[in-house]
C-alpha cells in the first residue's frame, strides 16, 4: 500500500482540510451556511439533481470539453507531449460555468430570488450573470474597481446579461475587496440572496461543493487520456488563484500515484520582489474570507496587496484544500512571472491558434518548462481553463496599442 493520505476524508464534517478550511464568518451568516450545507448534503447524491446537472453541462455548457494534443507546441518545446484540456471552449469561455450551473441548481432549491457573486477577471461574474439570466434571477456582481478597468469586455458582457456590476473601491480594488463587499451584501440580504462563490475558498461548504462541481474536468480528462493516449498522464498542470480549475483537474487523479501535479501561482514581477500573488510559495497560514489557509500577510496579520497581470490570480489567499495538499506533498506548487505568462500567451496563440486567458497562460508557461525536462514519451495535461479574448486590452496596452 502507498503512503498517500486518504483524499476522500477531507473535508471533515465541519469543513476542515487538516488545519485548513472551516467556517470563520460572522454569526449572521451561520444559519445560511448550515442551510446550504444541508441542501447540498441532501441533493449531491440525488439522482434527479445529478441528472439535471449533467444535462446542463452537456447541452448548455457543451461538455465534454476536448482533450487536445498540442502537437506543434510539443514539437517547438521539444520534450514531453503537451495536451490541453479545453475548458476555454465551454459556454462563456472558461471553467467557471461548471460551478455556477451547479450552484444555480442549489439556489433554485433554496427558493432565493437573487444571486450575488464576486469576480476578478470577470469570468465567474459572466458565468453567474449567465445562469441568472437563464433562471430569471436578479444578479449583482462585485468587482474590484481596478479589475473593472482591466476587464472592460467582461463588464459589458455582464451588463448585457442583465447583471448589475458594482465596482469596489476599497482596499486594493481587486478580487479580495470584491469578496469583502459580496460578504457585506450577503450579510445584509441573507433572507433572499444566494451567494455564488466562484472558487474553492470561503466558508464551509463552499470549498467542498465548488470542488465537487469542478471535478467534471478531471473525470473527463482521466477518461479521455485513457481513450486517446491509452494511458494516464504523467503530469497535470493548472494555474492557481483561488484554485477551482486546478482542484477540478487534480482531484479525480489524487489516488493515481504515477500522476504528478503542479499548481502554478502568479509570481507577478517575481517572488523576490514581493509584488506577486503566490501565498503557497511565500505566505503562511491565517484566516480570511471564512477559511483558514495560506495567506499573504504582514507580521501583524494584515493582508498584503497582491500583484499579477492576471486579474483572476490576483488574490492573497488560496483554497484550503490546496493548502492541505501542499502540506501533504501530493501536489507541487510552483510559480510563473507575468513576463513568462505573457510569453506563453503569445506562443500558444501563434503556434496552435489558441488564445489562452492570462490565468491559463501561467499553466501553459510552466508546462513548457516541465516538458523540456521530461522525455518525449511522457504526457502532460494542462488545464486551459479559459480563453484569452477578455485579456486583449491588457495585452494591447502592454504593447502600447490602443484597441
Amino acid at each position, binding site marked *: 500500500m502507498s503512503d498517500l493520505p486518504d483524499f476522500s476524508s477531507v473535508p471533515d464534517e465541519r469543513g476542515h482540510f487538516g488545519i485548513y478550511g472551516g467556517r470563520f464568518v460572522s454569526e449572521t451568516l*451561520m444559519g445560511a451556511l448550515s442551510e446550504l450545507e444541508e441542501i447540498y448534503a441532501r441533493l449531491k447524491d440525488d439522482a434527479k439533481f445529478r441528472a439535471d446537472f449533467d444535462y446542463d453541462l452537456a447541452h448548455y455548457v457543451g461538455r465534454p470539453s476536448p482533450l487536445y494534443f498540442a502537437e506543434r507546441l510539443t514539437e517547438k518545446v521539444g520534450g514531453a507531449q503537451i495536451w490541453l484540456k479545453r475548458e476555454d471552449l465551454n459556454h462563456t469561455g472558461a471553467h467557471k460555468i461548471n460551478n455556477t450551473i451547479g450552484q444555480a441548481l442549489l439556489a433554485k432549491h433554496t427558493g432565493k430570488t437573487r444571486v450575488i457573486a464576486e469576480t476578478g477577471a470577470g469570468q465567474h461574474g459572466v458565468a453567474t450573470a449567465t445562469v441568472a439570466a437563464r433562471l430569471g434571477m436578479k444578479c449583482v456582481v462585485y468587482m474590484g474597481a481596478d479589475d473593472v478597468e482591466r476587464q472592460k469586455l467582461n463588464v459589458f458582457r455582464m451588463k448585457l446579461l442583465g447583471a448589475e456590476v458594482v465596482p469596489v473601491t476599497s482596499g486594493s480594488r481587486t478580487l479580495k475587496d470584491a469578496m469583502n463587499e459580496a460578504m457585506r451584501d450577503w*450579510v*445584509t440580504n*441573507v433572507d433572499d440572496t444566494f451567494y455564488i462563490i466562484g472558487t474553492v475558498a470561503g466558508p464551509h461548504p463552499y470549498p467542498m461543493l465548488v470542488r465537487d462541481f469542478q471535478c467534471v474536468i478531471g473525470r473527463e480528462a482521466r477518461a479521455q487520456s485513457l481513450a486517446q493516449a491509452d494511458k494516464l498522464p504523467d503530469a497535470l498542470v493548472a494555474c492557481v488563484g483561488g484554485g477551482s480549475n486546478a482542484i477540478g483537474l487534480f482531484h479525480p487523479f489524487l489516488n493515481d500515484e504515477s500522476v504528478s501535479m503542479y499548481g502554478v501561482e502568479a509570481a507577478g514581477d517575481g517572488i523576490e520582489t514581493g509584488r506577486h500573488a503566490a501565498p503557497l510559495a511565500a505566505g503562511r497560514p491565517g*484566516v480570511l474570507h471564512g477559511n483558514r489557509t495560506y495567506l499573504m500577510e504582514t507580521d501583524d496579520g494584515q493582508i498584503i496587496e497582491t500583484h499579477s497581470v492576471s486579474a483572476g490570480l490576483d488574490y492573497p489567499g488560496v483554497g484550503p484544500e490546496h493548502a492541505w495538499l501542499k502540506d501533504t506533498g501530493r501536489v507541487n506548487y510552483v510559480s510563473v512571472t507575468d513576463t513568462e505568462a505573457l510569453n506563453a500567451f503569445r506562443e500558444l496563440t501563434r503556434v496552435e491558434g489558441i488564445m489562452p486567458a492570462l490565468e491559463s497562460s501561467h499553466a501553459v508557461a510552466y508546462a513548457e518548462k516541465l516538458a523540456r525536462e521530461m522525455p518525449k514519451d511522457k504526457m502532460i495535461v494542462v488545464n486551459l481553463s479559459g480563453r484569452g479574448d477578455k485579456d486583449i486590452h491588457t495585452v494591447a496596452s502592454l504593447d502600447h496599442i490602443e484597441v
Partner: protein
Amino acid sequence: MSRIANCFEQLSSTGRKALIPFITAGDPAPAHTVGFMHAMVEAGADIIELGVPFSDPMADGPVIQLACERSLAAGTSLSGVLKMVAEFRQSNSDTPVVLMGYLNPIEAMGYEVFADRCVEVGVDGVLLVDLPPEESGDVAPLFRERHLDLVFLLAPTTSEERVALIAKAGSGYLYYVSLKGVTGAATLDVDSVQAKVDTIRKHTKLPVGVGFGIKDADSAKAVSAVADGVVVGSALVQRIADNQGRPEVISGQLQEVLSAMRQAMDAH
C-alpha cells in the same frame, strides 16, 4: 469577580444599563486613543469596546472600514493596541475594556502570547467577529484559564438551538447584533429586538448588549429598555472621521454623543 461582571452587577443594583462605546484603536492616530477612552468614561461610558484594525473588515460598513484604513495607515498594530490599554490602565482600573476585531491579527501574534498580553495590560474581554463558537476550540480554553471573557455575537438569523450553544460558550456578556447587515447600517426595530432578547434570556443569565443601528439618544434609550447594554460604534467613529487632526474637538464630540445617550438611558 471580573471587571465586566462587576460592572453589570453594579449597574443592575442601581437600575441602570451599560453604555458601551466602540472606537477603532489608533484612529486617526495611535497617540489619541487613550485620551478618547478617558473622555468617553467621563461622559458616562461603562465598558469600552476597542476595535483592533484589520485590512479586510468584512462585517463592517464604510464608516468603520475607513477607520481601519486610517488606523493602519497611521501605523497601528495589535501590539500597539495592547500598549494603549496598558496606558489607559495607568489611570483607570475600573472600566472594562473589550478588544473587538477579526481573528487573523490575533492568530498572527499567536493565541497564547495574545492571551498573556491581554492579562498583563488589563484587557477584560475579547470579541472576534469571524470566530463562531464552533471554531473557538483552540482559543476558548486559553482565555478561560486566564479569566478573559470571550464575547460572542448573536444575530437575528441565529436559531434558538444556536442561541443555547452560544449562550453556553460565551462569557462576560452576549452581543446581539440587532439587524441583518454591516455596522453603521439602517435603523433597528426595537420590537423585534425585544422579541429576540426575550428568547436569548431563556437560555442565559449573562447580560445582553445590543448593537448595530444605534445612532442617537432616542435609539439608545429605546434599546436600553429591553437590553442590559447599548453598544454605539459608527455614530462615534463618524465624529472621528469628521474631525481628523483636531483630537480635542473629537473628544468633545464623543462626549456630547455619549452624554446625551447616558441622560436619555438614565431618565425614567
